């Protein structure tokens, strides 16, 4: 029986979630069915989900929780009467420390139980906002970990604890680290370089601080 993977990103096939799913699946394409929340009717997708014994939902973090369209699917999910079904989650996010996903992780853990699924786990991963734009080489370690996660899942139907732990690092910033980042930011060395570059490319840098609705 195939495992259903749900891509919960509003960007569907064009986002980071998709890359993570691809690496997790690896060469075992015939074992998975992938669906996209961005392209499906949530009611129909929730209905379709019932045909599978195992479901893995992969999504980006949107302001400490799931994207709105993902919640619209969750609203349609019903408690299963069959025992022995299992559900797991992978949450990836932009900020480098993965702790921002802790609220969502707690919610998803409770959700799986409430829906009467065996809870496989929630993999959280920070610092992922650029993976689909970066050259493959820069993601080498991450991709290897995801591949191992996928292989282990195929064999055992579980997420390997050590891999989950590695992927979550850093969970939070140490005091020294956040102070360092704060000072670097003050010096102009930060992600802002990236944002300003994009703004410049779009001829919008001079409008960066606009307040159109004040």
């Amino acid at each position, binding site marked *: 029986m195939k495992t259903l993977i749900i891509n919960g*990103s*509003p*960007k569907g096939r064009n*986002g980071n979630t998709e890359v993570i799913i691809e690496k997790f699946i690896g060469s075992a394409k015939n074992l998975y069915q992938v669906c996209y929340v961005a392209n499906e009717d*949530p009611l129909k997708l929730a209905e379709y989900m019932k045909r599978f014994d195992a479901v893995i939902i992969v999504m*980006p973090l*949107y*302001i*400490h*929780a*799931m*994207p*709105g*369209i993902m*919640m*619209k*699917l*969750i*609203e349609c*999910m019903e408690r299963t009467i069959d025992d022995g079904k299992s559900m797991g989650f992978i949450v990836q996010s932009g*900020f*480098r*420390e993965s*702790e*921002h996903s802790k*609220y*969502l992780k*707690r*919610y998803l853990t*409770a*959700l799986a139980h*409430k829906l009467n699924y065996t809870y496989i786990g929630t993999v959280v991963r920070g610092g992922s906002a650029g993976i689909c734009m970066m050259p493959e080489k820069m993601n080498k370690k991450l991709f290897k970990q995801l591949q191992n996660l996928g292989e282990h899942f195929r064999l055992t139907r579980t997420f390997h604890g050590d891999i989950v732990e590695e992927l979550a690092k850093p969970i*939070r*910033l140490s*005091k020294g680290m*956040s*102070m360092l*980042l*704060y000072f670097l*930011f003050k010096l102009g060395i*930060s*992600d*802002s370089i990236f*944002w300003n570059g*994009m*703004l410049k490319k*779009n001829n*919008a840098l001079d*409008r*960066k*601080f*606009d*307040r*159109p*609705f*004040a």
Partner: protein
Amino acid sequence: MESNLFIKEFDGFDIPCQYMFDLRKTKVKDCVGCWSCWIKTPGRCINTDLDEFYKAYLKADKVIILSKVNQRFVSGNLKTLFDRMIPLFMPDITFKHGEAMHLPRYRKYPDVEIYYQGDFDSLDSKEIYENYLHRTFAQFYSKCEVVKPINQSSMQEISG
């Protein structure tokens, strides 16, 4: 006079306010994750359906949200509304608070009070919902001291 904005998903607790946003009547377009609001048209979403809402939100002293708990969380519609608040903040990240946080775009944000309707089957799930909302409005630079279930005495509190 204090300016209020009401965002609601259920009836029975209306008080006079400057702007009413009924989430059952308005379908907010979902965030598509395109980042136009940060890198192409700073502060503006590619969709314009919330432009009036943004103005009212930023003008308000107090925003009152009547949230209908669904699957033990905020509804998908309300979550989409929260996603669409991202244009009101900057892409740039500060580490001042010991963790990453986006900088404000505007000088002032409203205070927020959240009253919810619906049951939780455990203390744990109630705590998840409440903590999540507190954290969201911390990122949104709003003072949010009230996240609680709605009841008979709420009406007085809301109008007080």
